[in-house]
């Protein structure tokens, strides 16, 4: 993309920048003339889907974003909620899907780097990350390679910078075969009254560049993330950035040191669209202008054009607006940390972004044209015609009860080995999940729990999305993702506080995709409103599509919950021989959209489970109350794979594997596979010491929650019957092997 500044502008060049003819016309209108190439480049990234949210904005407005604990809602680098004691939890999730598909190690690594910067930009010290990954089937060697590369990239960056990766999720499905998903979440802690924002106020204040020198890497990354892939996508490798976690660690420490003093007005990460987006967005929020002097920008190589400098996505860079007169002090801090730093411009009252290069005017654009007045599209919406057919599931679609697999134990083992359910040890062993010594519940339970040093408090973190549910019914799927994330938090003993999301979809130019998107937003909004968990930050990733085939809609939901007393917490694994096993919520699940139908019968159809948000709330409240009263030994959400899988997981994920004997109620004589593997919302499996059962029952009654005593922990087998009819009898050791070693086996590696 070496354009000459004198190049004659055409619609064809605009089109190569991903701008439509209509958008090009609007640019000419804003400027009152044709843009030069630098200006065109700036417009193209700022108006890209990735930066402008032009297709999603009208829908995102429907999210509930306020609440008594919300300190910072969407629109900043990250969201923030009040966790009491003068502290704020600052968090966000972002996608790095497209780069990771092209270059998995660097794509994933820089995804971690980007989200960390979003959080420490706010003045928060990052203390935990989660990641949510989607790949094609692992039978495809390419996806085994991608998984290895992505995990190595997350591990390489996160471990080096010293922020623990404490959990996440991993699913494989053919719909991701051409577009993997890499979504990374980070949470930091800040003083609630010391949050920093990306604002360029105070005319005359210096604009300071700090961090890595600018190179030619990553030019047009934001535009790439806003286009579909095709067979030529491998050619896009030069647009993937390269991460340097060591520099980021220095940047993190230096920025936090700087923020402890009173010298800065605003600060923003140079992420997608680098210098361009950070300067425009900061000026846009403050209603000011910015003048940049490109000749001052630290750079890696000579001869870089204004176009390249403005569009580079070199990593580990920040833009700071400091108080006038404090430049020297600011620069001293960064020099202590051996980081390049330079004053590269100043805040003006002009309302324009004015880019100078050695005294020559390289670009001049009204800031509002790039931010508030960027295009907003209310794109056409159409419900896919095959939606009805997808949701139809009658008995004729199911195997005859007589033809049901006779060996349910074997079915159970198959389900335990599905990547989404299998033990993630192979992955989490590569992540430093303990550094900072706050990880109280390690990866492998419904939610990770981290403590907040110097307080009694803890935070529970979970990320969830069942994209099969979303494909079958995006509205219900979106709501179920929120409900499950909150349930996971409640199973740890935490009160769900707020949500950040990462909405991964196909092309917004397809009305069916926009329908899925709009429906998912509605479902998420309904559930967030009902559960009192506002959306405080998030990210949209469209164009997850290759050669016309889109991914399953995947609105990832990350939830943060608060434990006022970290000693009152629970984990999913059974811990004590002789404990009673108790089920909160409805007993019978349904086969529609279930993992069982997909994995065993190759069917993806039916309606996802129904969700009664009122019941969901009560089940979770009862669970939390029981945990806080010290009545339970373990708590586990029963989701993918139904009760049989949830029971097996509880048997296998305690300190030592242990058996259980369970009899599931089946008053209406439902099919055995439905009883075992049917899925439903609002179900939690507790293990409870004998002497506390009555109290747990009283808690459930008070919350008007169905409760059933279904079995007992102990022995070396998991035995499950339904209404007295024996269905599963499997040695725990065999289940453990099927579950614990499944990923390594599928990857063809040994532990």
């Amino acid at each position, binding site marked *: 993309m070496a354009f000459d500044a004198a190049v004659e502008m055409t619609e064809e060049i605009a089109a190569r920048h991903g701008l439509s003819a209509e958008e090009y016309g609007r640019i000419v209108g804003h400027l009152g003339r044709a843009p030069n190439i630098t200006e065109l480049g700036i417009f193209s990234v700022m108006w890209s889907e990735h930066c402008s949210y032009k297709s999603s904005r009208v829908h995102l407005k429907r999210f509930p974003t306020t609440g008594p604990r919300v300190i910072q809602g969407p629109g900043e680098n990250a969201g923030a909620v009040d966790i009491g004691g003068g502290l704020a939890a600052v968090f966000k999730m972002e996608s790095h899907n497209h780069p990771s598909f092209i270059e998995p190690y660097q794509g994933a690594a820089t995804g971690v780097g980007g989200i960390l910067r979003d959080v420490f930009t706010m003045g928060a010290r990052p203390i935990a990350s989660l990641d949510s990954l989607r790949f094609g089937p692992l039978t495809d060697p390419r996806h085994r390679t991608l998984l290895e590369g992505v995990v190595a990239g997350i591990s390489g960056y996160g471990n*080096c910078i*010293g922020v623990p990766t404490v959990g996440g999720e991993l699913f494989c499905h053919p719909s991701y075969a051409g577009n993997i998903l890499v979504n990374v979440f980070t949470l930091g802690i800040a003083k609630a009254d010391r949050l920093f924002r990306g604002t360029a106020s105070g005319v005359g204040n210096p604009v300071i560049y700090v961090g890595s020198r600018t190179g030619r890497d990553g030019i047009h990354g934001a535009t790439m993330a806003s286009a579909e892939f095709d067979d030529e996508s491998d050619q896009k490798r030069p647009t993937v950035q390269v991460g*340097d976690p060591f520099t980021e*660690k*220095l940047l993190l420490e230096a920025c936090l040191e700087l923020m402890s003093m009173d010298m800065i007005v605003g600060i923003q990460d140079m992420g997608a669209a680098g210098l361009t987006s950070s300067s425009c967005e900061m000026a846009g929020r403050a209603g000011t202008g910015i003048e940049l002097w490109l000749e001052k920008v630290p750079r890696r190589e000579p001869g870089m054009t204004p176009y390249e400098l403005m569009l580079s996505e070199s990593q580990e860079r920040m833009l700071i607006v400091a108080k006038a007169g404090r430049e020297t002090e600011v620069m001293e801090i960064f020099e202590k940390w051996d980081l390049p730093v330079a004053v590269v411009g100043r805040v003006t009252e002009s309302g324009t972004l004015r880019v100078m290069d050695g005294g020559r005017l390289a670009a001049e654009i009204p800031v509002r044209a790039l931010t508030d007045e960027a295009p907003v599209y209310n794109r056409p919406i159409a419900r896919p015609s095959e939606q009805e057919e997808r949701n139809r599931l009658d008995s004729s679609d199911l195997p005859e009860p007589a033809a049901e697999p006779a060996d349910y134990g074997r079915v159970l083992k198959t389900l335990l080995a599905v990547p989404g359910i299998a033990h993630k040890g192979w992955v989490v062993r590569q*992540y*430093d999940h*303990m550094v900072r*010594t706050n990880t109280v519940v390690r990866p492998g339970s419904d939610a990770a729990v981290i403590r907040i040093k110097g307080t009694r408090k803890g935070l529970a973190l979970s990320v969830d999305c069942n994209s099969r549910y979303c494909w079958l019914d995006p509205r219900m799927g979106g709501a179920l993702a929120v409900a499950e994330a909150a349930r996971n938090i409640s199973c740890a003993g935490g009160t769900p506080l707020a949500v950040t999301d990462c909405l991964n979809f196909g092309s917004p130019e397809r009305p069916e995709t926009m329908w899925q998107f709009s429906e998912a937003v509605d479902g998420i909004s309904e559930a967030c409103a009902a559960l009192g968990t506002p959306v405080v930050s998030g990210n949209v990733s469209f164009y997850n599509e290759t050669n016309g085939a889109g991914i399953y809609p995947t609105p990832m939901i990350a939830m943060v919950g608060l434990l006022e007393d970290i*000693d009152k917490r629970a984990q999913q694994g059974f811990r004590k021989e002789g404990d009673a096993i108790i089920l909160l919520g409805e007993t019978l699940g349904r086969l529609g959209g279930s993992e069982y139908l997909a994995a065993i019968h190759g069917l993806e159809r039916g309606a996802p489970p129904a969700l009664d948000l009122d019941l969901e709330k009560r089940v979770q409240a009862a669970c939390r109350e029981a945990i806080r009263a010290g009545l339970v030994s373990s708590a586990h959400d029963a989701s993918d794979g139904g009760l049989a899988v949830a029971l097996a997981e509880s048997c296998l994920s305690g300190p030592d594997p242990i058996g259980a004997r369970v009899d599931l109620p089946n008053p209406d004589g439902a099919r055995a596979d439905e009883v075992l593997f049917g899925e439903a919302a609002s179900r939690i499996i507790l293990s409870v010491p004998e002497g506390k059962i009555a109290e747990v029952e009283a808690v459930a009654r008070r919350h008007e929650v169905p409760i059933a005593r279904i079995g007992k922990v102990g022995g070396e087998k998991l035995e499950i019957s339904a209404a007295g009819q024996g269905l599963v009898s499997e040695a725990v050791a065999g289940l453990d092997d099927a579950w614990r070693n499944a990923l390594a086996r599928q990857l063809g590696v040994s532990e």
Partner: protein
Amino acid sequence: MKFAVLVFPGSNCDHDCYHALKHVVGVETSFVWHKEESLAGFDGVVIPGGFSYGDYLRCGAIARFSPIMKAVETFAREGGSVIGICNGFQILVEAGLLPGALIRNRGLKFICADVSLRVETTGTPYTAEFRKGEVLTMPIAHAEGNYVADPETLEKLKRNDQVVFRYCDAQGNATDAANPNGAMDNIAGIVSERRNVLGMMPHPDRCAEEILGGGDGLRLFRSMVGSLSESRV
């Protein structure tokens, strides 16, 4: 009594060691920036884990040239207590304060997990609270923890009772299956000939509180503090 926790660019367990010493053990502790040149006034030095200088070039290879390392050498030569954990062990080896080298794990991947360790000697200031042969649980978190040394060095380490910890199974057998990274002779930690400089790959800083799942790290730090108090009397 006062401890120094060294901070190199890229150290990331500095806060963890500081927390364990200051808030759990309860001894006075200060961070010392790598550009400092003196350790005057300190009774013990901790070189924490992390990725000093990003582990670029070779783990610990750049950090050993930081100004503070001259002071560490003097401090150790005078018999002062120095403990290097994980990246700290790698720095001590690079600085020549401990023999051998730490190379890539044999499985080539980073490993973060609890491991079992057998206490091989109680004749160090760091292991007084343990019993010889006792099995401890501590986390490891490294990609380059595979200890290697030439045969003479290895022989000397054994002869002088300098091997402090070995990776073992839950029953205390130092088997190959229980060796997470391929370290020679299952070596997880060694002490200098004078027994005042300890290097270990496992993280006592990560198991100094029950809420984190164990207290064996606390016992190690307490041993160190205890022996220093005795030697001062």
